[in-house]
């Protein structure tokens, strides 16, 4: 339905109206917090209240769409945004099961992260900025999932990028977060160039940005559009070869990492691919499957050796996003032609990954508090100095068990439902393609084994065994210095733990997702085989790490390969960053010697000439050579005496006084006027502005009479 005037809003279906209000409310929250947040003692409670409200609205929208059958959807409203060159550009809201689920997810997780942050960020001086940025982030993501066309999506896409830049660099006074935020922004910018080119091509070919109804028609333009969108999406979703920004983005506050990895930012790319996959050519689907499977494997290998509690999870996210991208690539293998399982995995992953990050945040936060109390100093994110924390935070440990089981893909948990769907889809894909294509499901199966392994390793290092803080110089009473349970932090964890089980996603059948009517689960043994692989991974980790972290000597190039994420950063450093810096330095040298040199040369020549032909020299020469001989010729020596006296008098009384008077006048006025030249640029600007005003007013009087 098209809206022409504001009064048309009255005819809009209530859930659609509410969905449209959500991002507006959040933006309003951002404006209020940006303007008055500091005066409101940070404005944390305002932000939490606002996002509680939007979470309720998002939940209602999500619930009402799932009451409807697919054939009555989408609910679609649009209105004219602006006209240019006779063409009209629209904005609109598109609500179907996918976008409403995303909306519910984004608003819900944002609310939980807000509640968690109340305690986490409570003592930060700049927390008013934190709340404002979070609102902007959520608003951008909600706008993105509701958009009915690619241009509108792109606008919010960029806003998401901006908000993530601001939040990753939240502690911008330290070097690491500042660099990490720039890295994230620049890498995303490179990928976004693909998105922009796709937009231009789309406009040139179809004259519209609407994505509804687009499908692949077998021509080169469609392939190129698809490729551009794919490049944009793998930049935002941190897929090979753009994934380098995500591990560094850990430098931001941990709840922000949780939000970035779960509901906002990285899933935007996957969502775009899910929306646009009908336009993608079969070749691009194969490419997506390969990129996804490769990234999943690379990132899972990298997660094996990380010592930072958050970095493990960062690589885990890249790996899981790889699963989703692969799920889209192999998607058409399902008979329905939909990419349900990628979308499904996106939803389940969001809950347990958000939970895992919040657990990491809780652990880091408590360790910092304990360090302060016990005067201990060691890296609070290094898992080698943790261990045995289940005694200090039993509830958090239980919640962590739920999240980890879901990530590993154990039965009864949400990850089991979605990941197996993707794996089976990949097997169908391999069957269809034959031969080499078995690499794709092969990589995915290995990656899911490694997933179970690395998450079990994390649990063992953090929660099991004995506390190793003493090895890092902490005293014995360190274990008793932990703060009491903070319910503002634990409650969101428990809610997320509940959401990581099968109950929300498939209440009737814990072993098979009810909503997804596909034939993917035709072989009943396969899901159990995958669950067995996960158990194997956990068992392997339990055996290897039963005595704590491996000693440092058990390292070689394989370890380095994993620890440094296949040296991707070093490769980019030497292939792109260093040559670019060298070029900059070369240009600076050219500037210094050629351009500046030319200027200095000209200046030197002028100055030297000026010396030689100085006026005083010329005057002296003129006096001696011309005036003296002429004067001596005209006036006879006898008369000279009396005349010269008279002249002397005249000279002293009149000429000198005039000359001195003029000189004094010039000097005094010069001193006065000279004060105008204060060196303060803003004063100069003010003078010229006043002069302009006087000029304009005079002109107005002249021309209007």
């Amino acid at each position, binding site marked *: 339905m098209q809206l022409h005037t504001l009064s048309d809003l009255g005819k809009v279906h209530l859930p659609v109206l509410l969905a449209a209000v959500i991002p507006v409310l959040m933006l309003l929250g951002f404006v209020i917090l940006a303007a008055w947040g500091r005066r409101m003692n940070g404005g944390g409670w305002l932000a939490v209240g606002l996002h509680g409200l939007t979470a309720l609205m998002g939940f209602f929208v999500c619930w009402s769409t799932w009451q409807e059958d697919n054939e009555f959807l989408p609910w679609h409203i649009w209105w004219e945004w602006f006209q*240019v*060159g*006779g063409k009209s550009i629209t904005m609109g809201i598109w609500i179907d099961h996918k976008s409403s689920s995303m909306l519910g997810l984004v608003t819900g997780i944002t609310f939980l992260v807000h509640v968690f942050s109340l305690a986490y960020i409570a003592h930060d001086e700049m927390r008013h900025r934190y709340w404002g940025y979070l609102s902007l982030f959520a608003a951008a993501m909600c706008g993105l999932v509701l958009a009915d066309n690619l241009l509108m999506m792109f606008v919010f896409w960029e806003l998401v990028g901006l908000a993530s830049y601001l939040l990753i660099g939240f502690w911008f006074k330290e070097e690491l977060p500042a660099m990490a935020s720039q890295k994230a922004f620049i890498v995303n910018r490179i990928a976004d160039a693909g998105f922009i080119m796709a937009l231009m091509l789309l406009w040139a070919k179809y004259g519209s940005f609407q994505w509804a109804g687009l499908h692949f028609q077998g021509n080169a333009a469609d392939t190129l559009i698809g490729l551009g969108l794919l490049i944009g999406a793998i930049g935002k979703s941190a897929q090979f070869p753009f994934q380098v920004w995500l591990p560094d983005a850990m430098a931001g506050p941990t709840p922000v990492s949780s939000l970035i990895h779960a509901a906002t930012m990285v899933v935007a790319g996957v969502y775009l691919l899910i929306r646009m996959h009908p336009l993608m050519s079969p070749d691009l689907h194969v490419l997506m499957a390969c990129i996804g499977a490769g990234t999943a494997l690379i990132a899972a290998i990298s997660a094996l050796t990380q010592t930072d509690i958050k970095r493990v999870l960062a690589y885990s996210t890249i790996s899981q996003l790889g699963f989703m991208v692969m799920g889209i690539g192999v998607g058409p293998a399902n008979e329905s032609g939909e990419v349900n399982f990628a979308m499904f995995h996106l939803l389940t992953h969001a809950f347990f990954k958000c939970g895992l990050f919040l657990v990491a945040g809780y652990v880091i936060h408590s360790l910092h508090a304990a360090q302060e109390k016990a005067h201990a100093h060691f890296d609070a994110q290094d898992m080698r100095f943790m261990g045995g924390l289940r005694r200090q935070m039993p509830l958090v440990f239980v919640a962590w068990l739920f999240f980890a089981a879901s990530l590993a893909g154990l039965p009864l948990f949400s990850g089991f439902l979605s990941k197996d769907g993707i794996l089976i889809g990949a097997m169908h894909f391999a069957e269809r393609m034959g031969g080499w294509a078995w690499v794709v499901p092969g990589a995915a199966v290995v990656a899911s084994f490694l997933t179970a392994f690395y998450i079990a390793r994390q649990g063992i290092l953090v929660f099991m065994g004995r506390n190793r803080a003493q090895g890092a110089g902490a005293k014995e009473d360190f274990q008793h210095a932990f703060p009491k349970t903070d319910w503002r932090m634990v409650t969101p964890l428990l809610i997320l733990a509940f959401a990581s089980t099968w109950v929300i996603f498939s209440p009737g059948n814990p072993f098979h997702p009810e909503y997804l009517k596909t034939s993917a689960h035709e072989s009943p043994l396969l899901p159990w085989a995958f669950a067995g692989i996960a158990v194997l991974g956990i068992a392997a980790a339990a055996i290897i790490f039963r005595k704590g972290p491996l000693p440092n000597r058990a390292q070689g190039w394989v370890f380095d390969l994993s620890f440094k994420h296949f040296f991707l950063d070093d490769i980019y450093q030497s292939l792109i960053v260093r040559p670019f810096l060298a070029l900059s330095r070369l240009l600076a040298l050219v500037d210094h010697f050629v351009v500046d040199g030319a200027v200095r040369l000209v200046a030197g020549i002028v100055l030297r000439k000026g010396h030689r032909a100085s006026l005083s020299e010329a005057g002296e020469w003129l006096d001696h050579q011309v005036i003296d001989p002429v004067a001596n010729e005209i006036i006879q020596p006898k008369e000279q005496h009396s005349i010269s006296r008279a002249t002397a008098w005249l000279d002293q009384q009149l000429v000198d006084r005039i000359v001195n008077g003029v000189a004094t006048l010039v000097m005094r006025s010069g001193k006065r006027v*000279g*004060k105008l*030249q*204060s*060196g*303060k*640029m*803003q004063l100069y*600007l*003010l003078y010229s*502005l006043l002069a302009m005003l006087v000029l304009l007013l005079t002109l107005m009087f002249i021309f209007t009479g």
Partner: protein
Amino acid sequence: MSALELYLSLSAFLFCLGVFLVLTRRNAIMALLGIELILNAANLNFVAFSAKYNGEIDGQMAALFVIVMAAAEVAVAFAIVLNVYQRFKTVNIDEIDTMKD
């Protein structure tokens, strides 16, 4: 007020805000922000007049041109600010007054 007048009022407001920033902020970067506001006020005028009096997109093209130029201007301006900072160890415009008499 007609639509055009609304646009022009907004543009005038932006312009004054920009001039105010440029004239009063002691931080060079804030002054640069003011310059951006002034440029965008002019852009708004371009587009508004173009939409009102001319079905073509001349005004929009001029605005695009200004945007590109503004990007270049910002690059140069920040290079200057960086150099100023390296030399004077401050970006406070008031303390950089070696150009005085």
